[in-house]
Every structure is written in C-alpha cells, then in structure tokens.
C-alpha cells in the first residue's frame, strides 16, 4: 500500500493482547452457538486429546509447546517471533522454533518429507512399519524410523540432535564433515551415520570438507534441555487464582501440581512463568503466601501437593 494512502492515518490502536482478547471472545461465542450434539462431541474429543496428552508426557519432548494444528498435504510453514507445533499426516508432530521456514512435501501416512530452509525444528516420529520420514536441510538428509530429534540449519553447518531412538544422517548433495569444534570424546560414526539418542551430529555444509567422515558427540541431559529450551512456552498470569493457573501449568510441565483445598486455589499469581519452572514457582508461593509444598516422585513424573496452613488468610 502507498505510504501516503489515507487509510494509514486512520488506524485503531490494536495491540496483540487486544487481538487475543477479541479472538477469545469470538471463540467463546462460536462455542456457545454450537448445537448441543456438537458440543458433546467436542468434549469427547477434548477428553481423548487430554488422555493422549497424559500418555505422551512420558516421552521426552511431548506435552510441551503450542497447541498442535493439522497440516495440509503440501504446505509452507514459517514462523517469525513465535513457535509453531503441527501434526502431520502420519501422526508425527513437528515443532518449529522462531524464525524457521519449512516446506512440507508428501504429507501422507506412508511418507513424510520435510525441507528445512531456515531455523530449527523438532520432530516426534512414532514408529510405524514401512513409513518413510525424512528431513532435508542444507544438503543433509535425516531419516527417522521411530524417534524424536531436532534439526537446526545454520549458515555453515547442520546440527542433528537425537533425543529418542536413532536416525540415519547422510549428505544428499555432497559429503559431510565433522564439526570444527567437537565436544569432548567424539565417536566416529560410519557413513551414512547412525545417530543414537543423546547424541548430536554436526555436519559442515562447505564442500571442501567432503573427504572427512561423520562424527557424533554425546550430550548430557541438561545440555539437551538447554538446546531445546525454546520449546517450553511461557505462561502469563495476572492476579490469576492458582486454581485456574494449575491446569495450564500441568499441561506443559512434567511436574504435576495438585491443590490441597480451595483455600490454596484462591492464591493469586501475577507474572510470567516458564512452563517447566515449577520449582521457582513453588519457592515463590512458599515465601510469599506461606504455602507448604510436599514433593512426591512417581516414575518419570513427580508431583507437588500444595496446601495452606488452616489459619492462613489469602
């Protein structure tokens, strides 16, 4: 549009928060206008999704990130400052970091092909016999069978980080190179290289290093968490009762928070919480509101049970 177009000088002040509020109102009114049968169907689908989400929490990556959306057969996905989680035709899920561009080719139950043109993505690929799942980035092809892995495309290299299962990595346009600065104790891998869970492969993109082999290096759990910290969403609260905040927190955290009674549920939160940062939240509740936290570990998921002393006023 012309920079002197008159409409440019009669614009409302429309913040992102106002757009979100408008959308929530529209979504709410749409929901209320649905026929009763559809509403019950939606409740059923939501219940199934929650049940599925509960199972997925045992996997290393799942349960984090934005609500997933289905993707059409051929699509171009691009993020700016936000992240995006999508579900593919074979049931796999892909989470795009900010400033990422991906093309989806052949999004079918038997075959998925993604081309990463910029940024980073994380793929969670359930095992399925006979299905092919590939990600190409900067002349590197990553093939998955049943696994979870991240691919990051940088100017000089492609990084493949595997968190579950294993993937095969090979160059499609030229040979691959080891990283110039490897972490300690690198392990030489055959070509095409198999990268196991907990390892990262850095593949140089320049053709001059094509005579060298592929190298995979081991990462610690905290290094993997740090590398993928962008996947953890932030939650905004403004005088939000704990009873309303806890379901949101539990949706994104491996630590399940339970409330002792309605008194502790009425404690109000204000602030921005990184969704996996339950320890800090609990410490703040203990310090500011006298909440007592009881930690219980159950398998891969731990619980914290919050209560207030009986004579405590909120």
């Amino acid at each position, binding site marked *: 549009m012309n920079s002197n177009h*008159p409409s440019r000088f*009669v614009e409302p002040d429309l913040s992102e928060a106002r757009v979100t509020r408008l959308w929530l109102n*529209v979504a709410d009114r749409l929901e209320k206008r649905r026929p009763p049968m559809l509403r019950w169907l939606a409740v059923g689908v939501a219940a199934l999704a929650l049940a599925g989400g509960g199972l997925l929490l045992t996997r290393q990556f799942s349960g984090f990130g934005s609500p997933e959306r289905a993707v059409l057969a051929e699509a171009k996905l691009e993020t700016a400052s936000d992240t995006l989680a999508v579900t593919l035709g074979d049931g796999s899920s892909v989470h795009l970091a900010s400033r990422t561009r991906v093309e989806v080719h052949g999004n079918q139950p038997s075959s998925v092909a993604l081309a990463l043109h910029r940024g980073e993505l994380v793929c969670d690929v359930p095992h399925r016999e006979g299905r092919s799942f590939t990600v190409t980035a900067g002349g590197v092809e990553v093939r998955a069978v049943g696994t979870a892995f991240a691919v990051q495309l940088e100017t000089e290299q492609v990084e493949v980080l595997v968190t579950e299962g294993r993937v095969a990595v090979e160059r499609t346009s030229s040979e691959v190179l080891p990283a110039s600065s490897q972490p300690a104790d690198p392990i030489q891998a055959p070509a095409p290289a198999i990268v196991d869970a907990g390892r990262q492969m850095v593949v140089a993109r320049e053709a001059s290093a094509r005579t060298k082999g592929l190298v995979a290096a081991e990462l610690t759990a905290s290094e993997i968490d740090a590398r993928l910290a962008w996947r953890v969403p932030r939650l905004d609260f403004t005088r939000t009762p704990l009873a309303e905040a806890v379901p949101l927190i539990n949706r994104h955290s491996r630590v399940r928070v339970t409330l002792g009674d309605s008194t502790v549920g009425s404690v109000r939160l204000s602030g921005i919480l990184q969704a996996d940062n339950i320890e800090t939240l609990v410490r703040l509740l203990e310090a500011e509101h006298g909440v007592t936290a009881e930690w219980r570990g159950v398998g891969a998921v731990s619980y914290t049970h919050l209560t207030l002393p009986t004579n405590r006023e909120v």
Partner: protein
Amino acid sequence: MTVLSFVPRTESMTLTPAKQQTKSGSGPTDAALVVAARAGDAWAREALFRRYARLAAGLAHRILPFDSEVDDLVQDSFLYAFERLGTLTNPQAFQSWLSSIVVRTAGKRLRRRRLQVRLGLRTNQPIDLDEVVSRTAPPDIAAELRAVYGIVERLPVEERVALILRRVERLEISEIALQMGLSVSTVKRRLSAAEARLDRARNR
C-alpha cells in the same frame, strides 16, 4: 541448563500462553484455511482471525471510529463469517468477502445507533478529529480526512459508508458497490450526494 524465570509483574495481561497461537509468514493459503475451517478445525478459524483481525479492525474503525464499537464490530463480523463459511464460493476470496461483511455490519450498527439517538436511548457522540486522524498525516491528507470525518456524522448511512470507502479506502466505485451490496448506479448517487455536502462544508 534450562532457563528458569518467574518475573512478577502487576500490569494487566491475558491469561494465555505468550506467542503461541499465531502462525506467521507465508503459511497456508486463505483457501486452505477456509477449507480446514469449514471442516471444523478451530486452529484454521483462529489463523484466519489473526491474519485478518487488523484489516477488519482498521476498516471498522474508519467507518465507525469509536473503540467500543470497533471491538463489537470485529467480533460480530468474524462470527457471521465463520458461521457462513459454507456459502463462500471462492475460498481464496476470504479477505474481500470478510471486508464486505465488515462494511455491511458497520452499516447496520450505524443505523441502530441513529435509531437509539432518536429514541433518546443514546446521546450523539461527536467524532474527535484529533483522535481519529493521525498526527503523522501529511497536511493535504490530514485536511482531506478532517473534512470527511467532519461531516460523516451528518450524512445518511449509505452516503457515509460510500464516502469513506471512496475517500479513505480509495476503492473504485465497482468495488464499493460489491462491498456495500448496492448497484453501481446507486453508489454513484450516494457518492454524488455525499461529495456535494463535502464541497459545501469545505466552502463554508
């Protein structure tokens, strides 16, 4: 190490995960989103809303430059659109279809406001020209906008909408006719009458 932060703050904000719900850049086409929304995908409706909320709000604000009206107008327009997506014959034309819904919904709200004023249920709220026209507007454009918004409250609804679509949105007459659901000749008559009043106001 995982980044931990909890930053207490007091200003009001929405209770939604930050920056999670939008897809930006060259995502699915409008047609793909419309098809998915018709199939009942809530994410597609949200994507359409976020893609066009600013366009709808801008258009609504220029026709009815009062903040409270703009919010209602945007919500009513999208509700109408989502409930009638099945009637959109060309899914790629969502943007112009939505614009026409905003224009017609704004016309209805203007008529209702005027009726409420006549019945004494509402006081006539003048347009604050300093509030509506940006201070960054070049002098000639600011003068044109101030002249238009200085008279629109006195114009019949169809003349008002047609004048704004012509002088502010800079639409062709055929486009105005499509947006308003009127014939080209009717739009010409409405514009002719509105511009005559505009000239008289300027010459005063």
